[in-house]
């Protein structure tokens, strides 16, 4: 059991794209903490002091803005597609493994790897915030925040996984999924901006149907009216006006389940043709 899942970890880690993105995220996190700590501006320091016990949340939330979704895309886009590109899918399917087990363990491998990488980021955030800004408070909120962020990564993880399975091309899957992410964020921010300046909530309602709405807003919504709201506001440039947590959860469930089901159906029903070198 779980041989495919463990294999999937090795496959993803062997990809330079995944390693580079993980390193960038770690460096980015480290850089932000050092920048705040070493900030020469007196006024910035005055602003930071009251937030010092809560700065662990900065590192926990930072990847959520964009990087963790790119990391999810990077891991999942090649998960199935590379097996076709390299012809290695034959190696697995000609063994006592059902197609359902193969596709599910591949998915589980991608998701669990993302979870582990994010866990390292959270640990790094806790260490850095404690070392640089002293004892941290309100850590009781950490599990909720951690799971909401991991839950929200499912959308683009599954979109990239499905595109990779259906098109069987990893680069194409990475490009298309990345485009959907960026385009959806831009359109969503524009709609929220228009909604704010026109006082017409219909624009924001439209943005709520985009795939990024739930996946990028949910963790920030959970921090609404908490001691972290200032940090959340700082990271979320154009926050959603509505604070509908249930709708955000439904959005994540729908946008993550549809691609996952499509990829499973596609893999179960489609022939695996011979790799042509």
């Amino acid at each position: 059991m779980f041989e495919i899942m463990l294999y999937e970890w090795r496959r993803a880690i062997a990809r330079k794209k995944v390693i580079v993105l993980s390193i960038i995220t770690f460096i980015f996190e480290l850089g932000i903490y050092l920048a705040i700590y070493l900030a020469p501006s007196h006024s910035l320091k005055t602003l930071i002091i009251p937030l010092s016990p809560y700065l662990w949340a900065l590192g926990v939330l930072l990847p959520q803005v964009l990087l963790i979704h790119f990391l999810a895309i990077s891991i999942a886009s090649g998960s199935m597609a590379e097996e076709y590109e390299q012809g290695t899918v034959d190696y697995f399917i000609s063994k006592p493994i059902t197609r359902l087990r193969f596709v599910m363990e591949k998915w589980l491998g991608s998701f669990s790897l993302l979870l582990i990488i994010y866990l390292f980021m959270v640990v790094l955030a806790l260490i850095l915030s404690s070392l640089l800004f002293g004892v941290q408070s309100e850590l009781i909120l950490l599990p909720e925040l951690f799971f909401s962020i991991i839950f929200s990564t499912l959308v683009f993880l599954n979109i990239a996984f499905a595109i990779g399975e259906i098109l069987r091309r990893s680069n194409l899957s990475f490009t298309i999924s990345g485009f959907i992410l960026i385009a959806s964020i831009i359109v969503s921010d524009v709609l929220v901006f228009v909604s704010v300046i026109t006082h017409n909530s219909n624009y924001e309602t439209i943005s709520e149907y985009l795939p990024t709405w739930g996946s990028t807003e949910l963790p920030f919504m959970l921090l609404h009216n908490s001691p972290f709201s200032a940090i959340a506001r700082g990271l979320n440039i154009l926050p959603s006006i509505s604070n509908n947590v249930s709708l955000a959860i439904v959005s994540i469930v729908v946008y993550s389940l549809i691609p996952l089901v499509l990829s499973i159906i596609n893999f179960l029903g489609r022939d695996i043709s011979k790799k042509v070198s």
Partner: protein
Amino acid sequence: MIVVSSIVKKYGNKIALDNVSLEVKKGEFVSLIGPNGAGKTTLIRILLTLMKPDKGEVQILGENPFRNKRIFKAIGYVQEIPNYPPFLTGRQVLELSAKIRGVDKSEVKRVLEFVEMENYANSPIIKYSKGMVQRIAIAESLLGNPSILIMDEPNMGIDPIFSLKTRELLNKLKRKDNVSILMTSHELEDVKKLSDRIFMIYKGKIVFSGTVEDMIKEFLGIQVIVETDEIENAEEALKGIEYVKGVFNDGNRLIVKLNEDRREDLLRDLVTSGVKVKGFYIDLNLEEAYMRALRNV
């Protein structure tokens, strides 16, 4: 062990397999021959559940492989061009395979020794030559002593010495271990020496099935090689015999084509004519029979 019944497979409008049926019995060595694109690999891929047939049925060890994948514990497979995860070493590929098939890890050492790859087993697959990858593929197929071997061009890219070793192994597996083997190959010498039966496939259809001798008989007729120091006398003795279709002088031997299988009469007639026969055997020129078969179909 393997039963393929009336398989039809189409790629769009193109028929890749047209009502193909074959059977591989226990301990039998069956070769699938035919030109490139004939449908051999498609049939193998259907047996391995990589592709689904549009019509027909497949049974392996009495089970439908699409419904019961557990039977694959007993199946070894050599891919035409083996593709392994490039970041794994040869040993890791075999260990992963052993785990998935529920085979003891000690088997990895045994098969590595057999293919003489112990010294390279810890290098990544990406650094292997084509022949080394093929050796790993053969090693992988032998893990856990399978009762069925499916081999798609097993000798592709390997050197003649190891090729000979593989042939000896396949012979042993068939005779001593009662392993059922289905092999596709363009190496007709291997096919001739190993096969109990041949299936020739052309444009998706089985155009011949039978033994090597049957194939030669069907497409070349019966050809007998007569070795003697008295070539002229032998030629003279064979003139006018009604069952002799033709006689060809091949230097120090005669190739005698017969209308029907009357080898015993031929030998008797030669001996009674005073020809000292040093060698007398049926000409198993599978290559020529194959070429003739291709021309005929």
